[in-house]
C-alpha cells in the first residue's frame, strides 16, 4: 500500500488520536536515527572532544578518515571484503539459479528429499559447520585465503529456495517450445530462463552479497593476518585496541556502510521483497 492510496473508514480513530500516533512514531523515528547521527558527528571529532563532556564537537575535522586510509589496513580490508563478497555473490547466484531451475521444472529421483535437506539446513547454526571446516581448511592450507570465505556462502539454501519459487511461476510452454526447436538444455536455462528470472536473480545476488559482506564469525576464524581481514574483523580490531581511537572507529564503521546503503536505496524494493518473501506465502 503506498501513500497515495490512503483509505478512510468509519472506524478510524479521531484526528487527535491519529496525530498523537504520528507524533509518537516521529519520536520513535528520532530514537532510531540517533545512533546514526551520533556516529556521524563522532567521526568528525578530535580525540579531545570525544573524551570531554560536550555532545557537539568544538571543531570538525577530517583526520579520522585520513588516518583510516593512511595508517591502517582499511583499504586492504575494503578490497578483501569486495573480492570475497562479489565472488560469493556470483558463484552463489549461478549455483542457486541452476539448482532452483532443476527443482522448479524437472522431475527427478530424490527431488523431495534433497529439497527438504536444503530447507532443514537453514535452521542449523553456522557454529556447527565452522568447527570441522576450520580443521579441514587448516589441513589443506586454506586458512588465510579467499576461498575459505567464498565457498561457505556460495551454496545458499535461501537463494535456491527463492529461485525455485520464482522460476516455477514461469510457463512450462517456454521450455517445451525451445526443446521442440532443438535448443540445448543448458541454452534453455542460460538464454531463456535466466533473463526472465532477472528480478529474482537480483534479490538473491543482494542477499548473498549482504550475508558475506556482513559476516563476522567466518573471517574471524579463517583469517589470521591483518592484511587478509575483511571489514567487520578489521573494524572490530580497531575497536578492541588498548585505547581505541573512537573517532576513527566511527569513520571505519560509516565508510563500510556506504556500498550497502547505496545499493539499498537503489534496490530497496528487491531487497525488501527478498527478505520478506517466503514469510507470507509459505
Amino acid at each position: 500500500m503506498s501513500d497515495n492510496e490512503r483509505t478512510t473508514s468509519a472506524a478510524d480513530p479521531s484526528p487527535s488520536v491519529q496525530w498523537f500516533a504520528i507524533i509518537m512514531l516521529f519520536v520513535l523515528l528520532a530514537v532510531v536515527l540517533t545512533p546514526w547521527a551520533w556516529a556521524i558527528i563522532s567521526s568528525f571529532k578530535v580525540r579531545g572532544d570525544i573524551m570531554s563532556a560536550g555532545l557537539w564537537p568544538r571543531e570538525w575535522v577530517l583526520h579520522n578518515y585520513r588516518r583510516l586510509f593512511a595508517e591502517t589496513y582499511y583499504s586492504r580490508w575494503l578490497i578483501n571484503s569486495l573480492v570475497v563478497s562479489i565472488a560469493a555473490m556470483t558463484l552463489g547466484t549461478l549455483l542457486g539459479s541452476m539448482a532452483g531451475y532443476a527443482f522448479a521444472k524437472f522431475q527427478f529421483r530424490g527431488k523431495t528429499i534433497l529439497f527438504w535437506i536444503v530447507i532443514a539446513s537453514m535452521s542449523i547454526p553456522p557454529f556447527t559447520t565452522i568447527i570441522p571446516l576450520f580443521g579441514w581448511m587448516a589441513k589443506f592450507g586454506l586458512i588465510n585465503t579467499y576461498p575459505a570465505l567464498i565457498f561457505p556462502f556460495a551454496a545458499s539454501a535461501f537463494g535456491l529456495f527463492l529461485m525455485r519459487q520464482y522460476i516455477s511461476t514461469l510457463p512450462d510452454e517456454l521450455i517445451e517450445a525451445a526443446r521442440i526447436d532443438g535448443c540445448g538444455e543448458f541454452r534453455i536455462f542460460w538464454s531463456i530462463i535466466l533473463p526472465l528470472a532477472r528480478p529474482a536473480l537480483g534479490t538473491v545476488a543482494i542477499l548473498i552479497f549482504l550475508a558475506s559482506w556482513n559476516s563476522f564469525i567466518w573471517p574471524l576464524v579463517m583469517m589470521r593476518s591483518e592484511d587478509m581481514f575483511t571489514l567487520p574483523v578489521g573494524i572490530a580490531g580497531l575497536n578492541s585496541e588498548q585505547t581505541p581511537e573512537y573517532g576513527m572507529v566511527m569513520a571505519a564503521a560509516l565508510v563500510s556502510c556506504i556500498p550497502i546503503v547505496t545499493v539499498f536505496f537503489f534496490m530497496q524494493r528487491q531487497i525488501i521483497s527478498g527478505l520478506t518473501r517466503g514469510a507470507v506465502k509459505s
Partner: protein
Amino acid sequence: MANTYAEELSSKVTKRGEKRLARYLPRGRTLVPYFFIMPFFIVFGLFWIFPIVASIFYSMTEWRGITPPVFIGMANYVSLLNSPRFHQALGNTLVLAFFYVLAANLLALALALLLNAGWMRMRQLFRTAFFLPMTISIVVSAVIFQLIYAGEIGLIAKALSVFGLRGPVWLQEEGWATAAIVMLRVWRTLGYYTLIYLAGLQTVSSELREAAIIDGARPWQVTWYITLPSIRPVILFCVVISTISGLEMFDEIMILTQGGPADSTLTVAVYLYQQGFQFLQLGHAAAASYVLTCIVIFIAILQRLTIGRDLP
C-alpha cells in the same frame, strides 16, 4: 526484450498434442536435472552437509586442531553437563533470546498495525528509516552502540550529565549489559520484522473487518479477534526466525562485552567460540554446538506446536 521473446516462444506452442509430446524429456536426457543441481550440491555437500555430519563425530573426540582427533565417546557432553560455566551460558542465551523475541515482536507488530492503518501518512519514510539498520553488519551496529553505552564518553552518559544525572555503566553492570545487547538487536531488526508483519497484514480481508465494525465491534476487538488470528502464520514465522537468531547471538557480544561482566552475557555461541578457537578444544566446542543446534530445533518445534497449532 526478454519478454517479447518469451511471448513469441509461448505462442508457438498452442496445440495440446504438441504440448504433451514435449512434456517428457527426450530419451537419454534423464540426467539433465542432475547436471543442473550438481554444482550446487557439490559445494553444499562439502561446506554444509559434510561438516554438519562430521561435527557429530568430532563432538565425541578430543581434537586440538593440528593433531588428529582421538575418540573419547560422550566425555565432551558429560563435561558440558558438569560445567557451571556452560550452564550459565545456556541460561544467559535463553534469557537474551526470550527478551529479544518478546521486545522485537511486540514492537514490530504494534508498528506494523499503526503503519497499516488507512489514515497513516508518510509510510515510505518510516519503513525505510526503520529498515536501514538491518542492512549494516552487526559488528558495525555494535561499535556504534559502544559509543552510546560507554561510561563517561557514551552518548547516554553525556546526555544525562547535561541534566546532572548519572546512569548505569551499561556494559559493565550485570543486567544492564544484557539489556544493552537486547536493545541493540531490537534496533537493528525492528524494521525487518515490521515489514514482514506489514506484508502479512495486507493479506487480511478488509471486508471481514468492515463487517465486524458495522456489527458494532470496537477497533481493539477487531484487531484482537480478526486481524491477529488471520496473521498467525506470519506471527509464527517471525517468532521462530527471531528465536533462532536470538539463540545464536555472537557478534555484538564479542564487540561489546566478550561475555562479561562476570559471564552475565556469555552465550553458548561465545562459549563455544572461546573453547574452540581460543583454547583449541575443538571437540568440546563441537559438542556445545550440537547442544545449541538441538535447543534451536526443539524450541522451533515447540513454537510450531503452540502458536502454529492446526495451521497447514
